[in-house]
């Protein structure tokens, strides 16, 4: 079987889509490519289908909330962790979206398995994946208010009880009736 030699993903992408890569980062020998949201489908499809790259497995989609640090391009980051089973190497493709319009094109057209990953990212972080076939909540109840993994979401709804405040808390606790 003739397996082509592995290509450098940054050089190959720069040749095929010259304006796609905005930045690259290498941390602990892990390469991250930063792109614009609208380039996500084309870049992912190119990385999956090009001989020499074949990043054919989508490991995970992880949204990140950088609130309140605003030294990033935008508040939310969306990372696509992709893996090449042929060459046994990994790549992280990352994009940033603004708080008032957190919209990224869906990756379900490239990997059908991105369906639930994007639903989870939508449920927990409020990222909207444009073109997703069934963008419902995955983990939280359907009528849930807000997106719990956002940094500005309150952690709990009840103060921890100690002996000094137990009476005050128990006074407001909504005990169930028969």
């Amino acid at each position: 079987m003739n397996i082509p030699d592995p290509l450098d993903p940054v050089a190959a992408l720069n040749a095929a889509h010259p304006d796609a890569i905005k930045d690259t980062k290498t941390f602990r020998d892990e390469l991250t490519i930063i792109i614009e949201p609208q380039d996500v489908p084309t870049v992912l499809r190119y990385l999956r289908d090009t001989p020499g790259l074949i990043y054919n497995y989508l490991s995970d989609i992880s949204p990140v909330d950088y609130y309140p640090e605003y030294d990033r391009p935008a508040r939310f980051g969306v990372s696509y962790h992709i893996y090449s089973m042929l060459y046994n190497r990994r790549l992280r493709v990352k994009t940033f979206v603004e708080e008032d319009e957190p919209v990224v094109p869906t990756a379900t057209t490239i990997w059908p398995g991105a369906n639930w990953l994007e639903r989870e990212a939508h449920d927990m972080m409020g990222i909207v994946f444009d073109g997703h076939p069934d963008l419902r909540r995955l983990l939280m109840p359907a009528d849930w208010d807000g997106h719990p993994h956002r940094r500005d979401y309150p952690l709990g709804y009840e103060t921890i009880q100690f002996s000094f405040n137990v009476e005050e808390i128990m006074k407001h606790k909504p005990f169930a009736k028969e």
Partner: protein
Amino acid sequence: MGVTPKLGNLGVVTTGLEDAVNWARTGATWPLLFGLACCAIEYMSTQAGNYDLARFGMELNRASPRQADLMIVAGRVTRKMAPVVRQLYDQMSDPKWVISMGDCASCGGVYNNYAVVQGVDEIIPVDVYVAGCPPRPEQLMHGILTLHEKIKGERIADWA
């Protein structure tokens, strides 16, 4: 239980109605077959041979809430699960009792966050709380015996 002395050798026992009914209720308090988290593992070992809940007439876990008398909430109740637990409780026929097993079901335990109900008593009325994380089978049996004491104290006037 105030059983009055036998009348001669007739083999007849007289007692009060309340005592007889409460004796029957404590003798076969069938629990509802469900568990929510790791406390259910401890609950299962309470059921199994070493601790043997059959001694209290509880060897039978009813899988249907219509036939269950006792709900043992074993584990943390998430807010997604809360409507389900409440519906199961509503489907149980009277008389019914609830044991909140473990710290998570009683007060939220270590899960002080948005996803977990801070005590199952926010959605259903609880009769006995069993502390522990998870409680050992002895503690759960103590909770059950405590519930028996409560049932034996019920009076006709309290019956619904």
